[in-house]
């Protein structure tokens, strides 16, 4: 390349950098700024020449919940230490304070700057996500509002049918009782469906809270089994419980754990013919707690086994037998198990039954902040 060609190339690169909509900053190993583009200058209210040579933390002050991030939490340090690209998005809840004091939410990508195989600094690409955050907020509000609006009439149907069923306002004949019971049960299903849909929307939004506290798995499981007892008795199912004494209480979110037990156990009850057997085992296995839910039910057809954790999927063989069911339960369970750092898998043979296995680490679930809990 001739000198002129090099200069043209240089000018072209400068034009690209200064025309970019995202802020771009490159730093060296001493965390000093070697390059900053115009967009970064505008976002941070600092002229690029003024920033050159300054320490990155002086120019790009990163905050979480209005508190400056401590050194070891800085994504820049992580990217360099782990030699990995770090992406910070809406859900990470990070902000940057510009020179004029304005704090704005950011999305950023930090990549280690590699030259000849050695790390010589990092490249930071960032943008203002105030708009994204407003949209996210609107979504959250919609979910909350929709939940409230849908549930109010459902609560009214619940309560009135409960009072009439209890014969508080006069006796009922058998047929009236039966019909009203159907009305009441259908409405309960509607409440569950609304709850499931809300949970799915929170999962799809990518943020539900995990709030671990010391939790006794067997207590949560027994609570769910007590609720299911009427259905278990009605179908004359045998329940085999096998709780290993060694299972300690671990840090887990009891609400999430409840969702796991509730879905798997109610599925086992629902999809097992009368006089069948359902089983629940809790064991300590290595560094995990193993939950095993078995049934002698209809089983999952081999052709459907790859799809059962897909949202809204229901296997053909149960669709005919059980009208109830939303196709949301296992999708929710899988998301919850994975958020808790665990694994889920199953064995099933059509016509013989199904076993679900879940492991959750003894070390406990990791706390995750989120504006939306699951219910």
């Amino acid at each position, binding site marked *: 390349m001739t000198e002129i060609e090099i200069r043209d190339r240089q000018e072209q690169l400068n034009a690209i950098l200064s025309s970019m909509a995202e802020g771009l900053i490159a730093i060296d190993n001493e965390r000093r700024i070697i390059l900053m583009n115009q967009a970064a200058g505008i976002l941070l209210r600092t002229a690029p020449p003024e920033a050159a040579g300054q320490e990155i933390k002086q120019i790009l002050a990163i905050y979480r919940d209005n508190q400056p991030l401590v050194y070891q939490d800085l994504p820049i340090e992580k990217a360099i230490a782990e030699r990995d690209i770090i992406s910070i998005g809406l859900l990470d809840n990070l902000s940057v304070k510009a020179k004029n004091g304005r704090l704005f939410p950011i999305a950023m990508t930090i990549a280690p700057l590699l030259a000849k195989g050695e790390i010589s600094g990092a490249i930071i690409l960032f943008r203002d996500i105030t708009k994204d955050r407003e949209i996210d907020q609107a979504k959250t509000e919609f979910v909350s509002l929709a939940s409230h609006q849908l549930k*109010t009439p459902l609560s009214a149907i619940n*309560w*009135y049918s409960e009072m009439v069923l209890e014969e508080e306002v006069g006796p009922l004949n058998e047929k009236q009782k039966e019909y009203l019971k159907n009305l009441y049960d259908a409405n309960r299903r509607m*409440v569950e469906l609304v709850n499931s849909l809300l949970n799915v929307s929170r999962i799809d939004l990518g943020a539900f809270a995990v*709030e671990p506290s010391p939790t006794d798995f067997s207590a949560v499981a027994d609570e769910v089994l007590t609720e299911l007892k009427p259905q278990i008795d009605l179908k004359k199912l045998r329940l085999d419980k096998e709780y290993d004494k060694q299972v300690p209480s671990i840090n887990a979110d009891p609400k999430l754990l409840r969702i796991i037990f509730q879905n798997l156990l109610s599925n086992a009850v629902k999809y097992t013919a009368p006089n069948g057997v359902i089983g629940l085992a809790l064991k300590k296995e290595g560094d995990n707690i193993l939950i095993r839910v078995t049934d002698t039910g209809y089983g999952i057809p081999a052709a459907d086994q790859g799809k059962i954790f897909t949202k809204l999927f229901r296997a053909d063989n149960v669709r005919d037998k059980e009208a109830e069911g939303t196709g949301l339960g296992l999708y929710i369970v899988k998301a919850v198990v994975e958020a808790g750092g665990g694994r889920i898998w199953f064995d099933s043979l059509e016509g013989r039954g199904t076993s679900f296995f879940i492991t959750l680490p003894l070390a406990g679930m990791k706390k995750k902040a989120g504006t939306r809990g699951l219910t």
Partner: protein
Amino acid sequence: MADVNTLGKILLVEDDKFLSVALGDKLTREGFTMIKAVNGQEALAKVQSQRPDLILLDLMMPQKNGFEVLAELKLDETTKNIPIIILSNLGQEADIKKAKELGVREYLVKSDVEMKTVVEKIKAELAKSANGNFAG
């Protein structure tokens, strides 16, 4: 308890007419004296004029929501010890936490709770507050 002829005087704060009638009828049949309010503003006025033994409080309401009502009741020496049960369809962890921080002991989600449970919880709270008063 103020009223010797009934199990207690309950202020029901609920803006939905159907739910208000359901709860009002049920609790009257159970032997409680009912007072009703349809928004936060009216609730605060009725607490002052009627001195209920317990408040069943909705959260999403016009003219002062339940959280605002809670905060005001807790600031007033004469009302801060009235037991409050939240009966709302807001069931998010954050809402429950916020209410508990404001001194609420019972938080029930309407669509998930049977009426008989509401009655049991009211009786339990009234028993607790009666014991508390005697002990104090």
